[in-house]
């Protein structure tokens, strides 16, 4: 990971999202799908913490070499400030942060499920999978048509696509997870990847466990430092040998996890302190096929 002063090359609106392209060759060269960047807020303001966003695009070759794109909703003071940033302005950027998605070595048929800005991370993954000769199919969605991130690019990078929106303004009415069983069977999914709200990730975890399909999900948790120092962004994850669980940092041990090992109830409960600690004999789950 690097920390750089990066110039904004361009900014644009993509539906409900802002998309920023930066000149950041040190980060772009190393960026892999599932990783993210941390953007510092301006000095002397009341919002202190960096904002963290999935990398949507990192160009290593061609005319755009050395550029990096990420997208976000203007959903708070920091994101609104960032949304008002203009081309040629400089940002203090750390990245690439976190552990990326792993690519399957033998299995071919990859189904990618994303909702909201999770789609930004998974279109990057789709490109990298296709570059490795994998078949990619995608299910994407959002609350409205405007919240479906770059549907045309999604169609470009995947064999078949299912689009679902909460209000039915684009594609089918519903949430992406509803299309999962049919799509998985239809495309013969051998591996599933997901990014988006926790409810989606948990549903993907349950589906894949039931159908014995290996999966990887990119989680989001509130962060302070983004580089492993503060232990703010932890997720409860069962140990490989099943002997209990550890609170792992989404920023350095994640954000990509095997969903079969995440203790979703503990992580998502409103009052997790009321949950009993799981007994020593947690199930040992299959590891990534590699």
């Amino acid at each position, binding site marked *: *990971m690097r*920390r750089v002063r990066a110039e904004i090359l361009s900014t644009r609106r993509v539906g409900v999202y802002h998309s920023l392209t930066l000149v950041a060759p040190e980060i772009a060269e190393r960026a892999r799908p599932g990783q993210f960047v941390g953007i*510092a807020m301006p000095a002397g303001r*009341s*919002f*202190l*913490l*960096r904002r963290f966003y999935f990398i949507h695009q990192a160009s290593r070759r061609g005319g755009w070499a050395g550029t990096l794109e990420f997208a976000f909703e203007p959903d708070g003071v*920091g994101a609104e400030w960032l949304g008002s940033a203009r081309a040629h302005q400089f940002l*203090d950027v*750390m990245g690439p942060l976190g552990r990326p998605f792993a690519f399957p070595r033998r299995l071919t048929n990859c189904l990618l499920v994303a909702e909201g800005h999770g789609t930004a991370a998974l279109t990057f993954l789709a490109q990298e999978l296709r570059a490795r000769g994998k078949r990619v199919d995608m299910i994407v969605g959002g609350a409205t048509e405007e919240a479906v991130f770059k549907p045309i690019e999604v169609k470009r990078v995947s064999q078949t696509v299912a689009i679902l929106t909460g209000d039915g303004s684009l594609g089918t009415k519903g949430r992406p997870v509803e299309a999962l069983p049919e799509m998985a069977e239809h495309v013969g999914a051998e591996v599933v990847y997901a990014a988006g709200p926790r409810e989606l990730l948990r549903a993907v975890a349950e589906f894949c466990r039931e159908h014995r399909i290996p999966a990887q999900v990119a989680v989001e*948790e*509130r*962060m*302070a*430092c983004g*580089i*492993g*120092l*503060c*232990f*703010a*962004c*932890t*997720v*409860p994850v069962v140990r490989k040998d099943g002997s209990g669980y*550890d*609170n792992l940092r989404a920023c*350095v041990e994640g954000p990509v996890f095997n969903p079969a090992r995440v203790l979703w109830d*503990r*992580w998502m*409960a*409103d*009052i*997790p*302190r009321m949950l009993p*600690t799981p007994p020593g004999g947690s199930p040992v789950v299959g590891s990534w096929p590699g």
Partner: protein
Amino acid sequence: MAGVKRTLAVDLGGIALSTPLVAASGTFGTGREGGLLDTRRLGAAVSRSITLAPRKGAPSPRVAETASGLLWSVGLQNPGIDAFLADELPRLTRTGIPLFVSIAGSSLEEYVRLASVLQDVQGIAGIEVYLRGEGEAQEGEPFLSSAEHVVGVVGAVSRLSRLPVVAKLPVSLADLVESARGCVRAGAHGLTIDGSAPGMAIDTARLRPEVGAISGFLSGPAVRPFTVRAVFEVARILPEVPILAAGGVWTGNDAVELLLAGAWAVEMGTALLVDPSAATAAADGILGYLKHKGLASPADIRGRVRIPEPGTGEEAG
């Protein structure tokens, strides 16, 4: 002023630091994160707080941003003293920066056992005793809620320790000045005055507390005036005792403010989490201030805040 040899070095009563800037507990990682934290101008660092047995820590979410503040509740997540000594300490000390090990416990016995274990460990500069009560009630009162408990723990640790012991006193502690005096009398080498205060924030849309532990502690620039006042009050009673100020230091000027209030060194926490080179920038800021004032070292600023005398016409209206 010509001929002044300027330095950032400070001496905490026999503990030599190259700068008065210290990475606060919980900002120095485990030694495996590598890379981005700029340690060039750190005079020392404090480890995350270590307990006897491993602790899972607090439920998610553990942080929330508030106006100029960071509300946090990590709940002392740590691997326990044995795993810490085996896996983390060797990496943390490899940096060459003097390291204080922060210890936390739920009982007097736990603190004593932790301190005993550390006596045989090579390469650490001292022990910082974390003193926020999270343990069971003793005789009806929560552990560490009174000056008596705090002084009891610090005294027990200091008596058995060959390493310098620094007591980290929360400003929210009832009778802070009395506790400080008691800790020093009981054998503490120094004090960290910790400006983080208990706090809570509520997500109004979801009608839920912002942090999983319901309430947490507030850090960041929002709390700096708490730290300044507490350091000022303690330092004027105990001018000979090394005081580290923790809570709200972001810039060189913030550090100077706390030195003027009476601190010998300052700890940086939230600032380092946001800006891994905050200590380097702060060091430059302190040097700039010394140069501007024609002074040689941070010790020349210590406790130099001028309090107007009544009747001179200087007092506030």
